[in-house]
């Protein structure tokens, strides 16, 4: 052995003494330097859309450690601070463990049994349906729910309760990307995959702070750049200088919303310089414009781009945009041979989100930077399962499982057949989209809503407006969650659910990759997996509505063991029956196959053989994509078989520049934008309960440009009042060369009423995707006071003599009066 004998003896002495008093020496490791555990269980990280594969270390039935899976193709063993630490809140004392109920929202909650809780839930929904019809009930789900959960809930609502009022928080997150992909490529989700990163030569990162929002994926770009500093180019396009800009060779800073002009100008330069791929355009591309999708010519496109010369665009964009910078960006983009674009909310959370997506897709189509290694137009997904569960599982009001539009009669009836329910059960029109859904609650049209694993009371734009609806006593609100949140404060019934690793299920991440997480520990007593909750609820509903079809939709799952057999059965139906033959074919990716894989399976994976090898790395490429291979004719290299494009072509859209819904003016001269930080996930209801992360990011800040700060006399940590037409909040200032002059940027994770920024953001939305414009609205700021000792705030509950209450300065009684 290499350690000295003395060292060994000293260690033995210490261990002996320690064991006599039952003390563990810290950092105790097994012989190999790993934390001591009984077993490691494989799964997926609970947070962002990268889909890191992790193993949870279990000791004595409790989660005690997490490590990355070194041979997983998403993260290669790496984790960010959230992924590294989330085992710490699984047994947090704030965990919801008992069903809680109150008839009136001003009362405290009483603990009730599951039997009673499910009865009440069934009663209230049945009551609403009988009195007001099926469209008076709704489901608002989440990109953080398991695919099996989203699939089963939407099956119950659509096939059982006969309403398409099925929505989810990806509407706030990814809807524009979905719209962009479907209109540009004919089908949703990226063509390529993460592995294109290691082959790319130019990275175009726009509207994304990957370094904080997708850190483990950013790591791969960082390494690619730092290992090849001279040949790899990174362009960062963002009105804000962020940690992502650190590796950028070129930072394009433009006024929020003007990226449409910038992207069009890049296309103009590409064509002027003859950098476009004429062969690709000839064989695979058409040009479209307007609602009617009118087909136009390449020359029409060129004429359209005359409005966006670099000079004209630079004028529109402001910031640091010069015609030369536009030309340089276009050059690096078009001539690298392999360019990858990445974006998230900067492009999606806009009233022109679909257009912004189209314009990035346009650049790739124009230069043929698709379908080849290292080139892709890659939309980063924010949540771990927005793709797999909601976009693919049928979790938005207008799409059924496996990318079937509700309005398509043939496909809708196909789903009814696959479900074994009578034709006509599923309504032929889409339900309410998210903003419309919560507006319908305000208008008294929706009487009962089930909110699952998300907190719209904090995450909706213009939040107070919709909190009024949820706070109504004639609206029955059920919330399934693991912790108290701003939304449980408005609930009638709170159902404690099992967390990831306390239940089995699939998450599908940004690169079309579905990965399985196995149950590793039991949930805290009385918390239940949502699949079990859904089945039991549906059974009762069926009786109360005297409608056997409501039972039929859950019958294959009734009585199944909830830890593994139940999710397996749901997945078998979804993947094996509903996705079979569709573009997101996952029928080859059975649970057995998923368990054999270190990471997961990328669709299409129509057979087990293909799935065992990992599935399809790149869509539409003959020889790589089994569907393209099957459909290919002659010697075409690609088959763009997306269902939305009957001509099997990629479409370049002629999109103009149009500004945001609410731009700065004399009264409200600042752009207000919002976003995330690496330390806190979304509403911080989970990460805020990890001491290290709360200490690292205890409350929201408003980032202010130093020149604006100087002008307004604002110093670091001063409390700043941010006011919009919808209200005001008070947030400490961070003076940083971050947002451009005339713009402020606020972190949205803070639950404190006075610092909750979504109370003042605007709920304007993209007419195509219905996604709200969180990224741009108009505000005025002023110094409110000097620095104050602030306290971080996380919503908790406490048991009083009268029952369980939330501890929050938000008071529902007073709020109802407003």
């Amino acid at each position, binding site marked *: *052995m*290499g*350690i000295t004998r003395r*060292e*060994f*003896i000293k*260690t*033995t*002495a*210490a*261990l*002996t003494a*320690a*064991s006599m008093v039952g003390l563990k*020496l*810290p*950092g*105790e*490791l*097994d*012989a*190999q*330097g*790993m*934390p001591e555990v009984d077993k490691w269980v494989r799964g997926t990280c609970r947070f962002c859309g990268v889909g890191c594969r992790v193993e949870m270390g279990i000791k004595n039935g409790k989660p005690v*450690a*997490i*490590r*990355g899976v*070194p041979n997983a193709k998403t993260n290669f*063993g*790496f*984790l*960010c*601070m959230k992924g*590294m630490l989330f085992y710490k809140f699984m047994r947090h004392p704030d965990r919801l463990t008992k069903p809680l109920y109150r008839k009136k929202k001003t009362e405290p909650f009483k603990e009730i049994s599951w039997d009673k809780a499910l009865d009440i839930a069934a009663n209230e929904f049945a009551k609403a349906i009988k009195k007001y019809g099926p469209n008076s009930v709704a489901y608002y789900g989440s990109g953080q729910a398991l695919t099996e959960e989203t699939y089963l809930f939407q099956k119950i609502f659509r096939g059982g309760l006969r309403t398409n009022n099925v929505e989810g928080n990806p509407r706030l997150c990814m809807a524009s990307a979905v719209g962009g992909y479907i209109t540009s490529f004919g089908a949703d989700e990226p063509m390529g995959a993460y592995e294109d990163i290691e082959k790319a030569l130019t990275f175009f990162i726009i509207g994304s702070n990957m*370094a*904080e929002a997708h*850190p483990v994926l*950013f*790591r791969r770009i*960082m*390494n690619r750049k*730092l*290992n090849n500093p001279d040949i790899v180019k990174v362009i960062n396009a963002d009105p804000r200088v962020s*940690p992502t800009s*650190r*590796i950028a060779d070129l930072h394009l800073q433009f006024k929020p919303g003007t990226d449409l002009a910038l992207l069009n100008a890049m296309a103009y330069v590409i064509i002027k310089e003859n950098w476009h791929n004429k062969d690709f355009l000839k064989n695979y591309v058409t040009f479209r414009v307007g609602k009617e999708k009118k087909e136009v010519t390449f020359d029409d496109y060129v004429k359209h781009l005359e409005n966006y010369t670099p000079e004209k665009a630079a004028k529109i964009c402001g910031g640091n945009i010069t015609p030369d910078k536009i030309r340089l960006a276009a050059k690096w983009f078009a001539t690298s041979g392999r360019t990858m674009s990445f974006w998230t909310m900067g492009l999606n959370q806009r009233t022109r989100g679909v257009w912004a997506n189209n314009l990035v897709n346009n650049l790739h189509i124009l230069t043929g930077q698709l379908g080849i290694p290292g080139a892709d137009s890659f939309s980063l997904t924010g949540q771990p399962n927005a793709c797999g569960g909601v976009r693919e599982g049928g979790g938005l009001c207008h799409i059924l499982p496996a990318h079937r539009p509700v309005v398509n009669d043939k496909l809708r009836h196909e789903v009814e057949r696959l479900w074994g329910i009578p034709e006509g059960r599923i309504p032929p029109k889409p339900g309410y989209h998210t903003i419309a859904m919560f507006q319908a609650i305000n208008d008294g049209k929706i009487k009962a809503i089930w909110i699952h694993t998300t907190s719209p009371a904090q995450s909706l734009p213009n939040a107070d407006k919709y909190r009024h609806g949820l706070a109504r006593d004639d609206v029955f609100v059920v919330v399934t969650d693991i912790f108290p949140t701003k939304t449980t404060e408005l609930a009638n019934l709170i159902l404690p659910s099992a967390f990831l690793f306390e239940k089995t299920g699939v998450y599908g991440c940004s690169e079309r990759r579905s990965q399985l997480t196995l149950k590793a520990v039991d949930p805290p007593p009385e918390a239940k997996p949502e699949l079990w909750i859904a089945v039991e609820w549906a059974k009762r509903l069926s009786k109360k509505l005297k409608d056997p079809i409501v039972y039929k939709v859950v019958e294959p799952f009734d009585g199944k063991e909830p830890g593994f057999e139940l999710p397996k059965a749901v997945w078998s139906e979804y993947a094996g029956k509903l996705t079979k033959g569709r573009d997101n074919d996952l029928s080859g990716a059975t649970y057995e196959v998923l368990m054999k894989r270190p990471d997961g399976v990328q669709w299409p994976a129509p057979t087990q053989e293909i799935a065992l090898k990992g599935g399809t790395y790149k869509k539409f490429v003959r020889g790589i994509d089994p569907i393209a291979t099957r459909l290919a004719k002659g010697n075409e290299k690609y088959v763009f078989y997306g269902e939305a494009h009957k001509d099997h072509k990629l479409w370049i859209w002629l999109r103009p520049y149009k500004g945001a819904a609410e731009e700065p003016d004399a009264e409200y001269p600042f752009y207000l934008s919002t976003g995330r930080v*690496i330390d806190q996930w979304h509403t911080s209801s989970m990460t805020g309960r990890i*001491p*290290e992360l709360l*200490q*690292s990011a*205890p409350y929201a800040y408003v980032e202010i440009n130093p020149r604006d700060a100087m002008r307004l006399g604002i110093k670091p940590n001063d409390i700043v009042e941010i006011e919009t037409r919808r209200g005001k909040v008070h947030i400490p200032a961070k003076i940083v060369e971050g947002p451009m002059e005339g713009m402020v940027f606020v972190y949205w994770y803070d639950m404190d009423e006075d610092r909750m920024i979504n109370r003042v953001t605007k709920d304007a939305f993209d007419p195509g995707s219905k996604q709200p414009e969180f990224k741009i609205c108009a505000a005025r700021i002023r110094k409110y006071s000097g620095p104050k*000792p*602030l306290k971080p705030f996380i919503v908790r509950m406490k048991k009083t003599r009268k029952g369980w209450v939330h501890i929050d300065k938000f008071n529902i009684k007073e709020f109802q009066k407003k």
Partner: protein
Amino acid sequence: MKSKFIKSVLWSVILIGSFSAIYAQGTVKDEHPELSPEEKMMTCRGCHKEATPEIYNEWYNSRHGIDNVRCFQCHGTFSDFHKTPPISKCAACHAKEVLNLHVPENSPNKTCWSCHPVHSFRVHKGK
């Protein structure tokens, strides 16, 4: 006679004590210098940018720094502070390397920073 007795006493004590042959990195939690409650609300890097600028810069310009791997992930926070982190913290992301470190043939007393200078963690090949 006397020496035999002493010997057996000594050796029995040794035997009783040496049943635990696990190699453990038992380092006690260190104490961070005293801070006021307001100072404690600062992020590690917020303070250390001024307090220990060389270390801060080494970290900031390293791959950890660019990819937002932050101080507390290795060093813990005030209640769990380690000046020199136990290797188990590295194992969260670098499990394969930590496992290889402790293969007996490769001198198991090694730590990551036996070869990779702390905070900058440059790889040997001069990258």
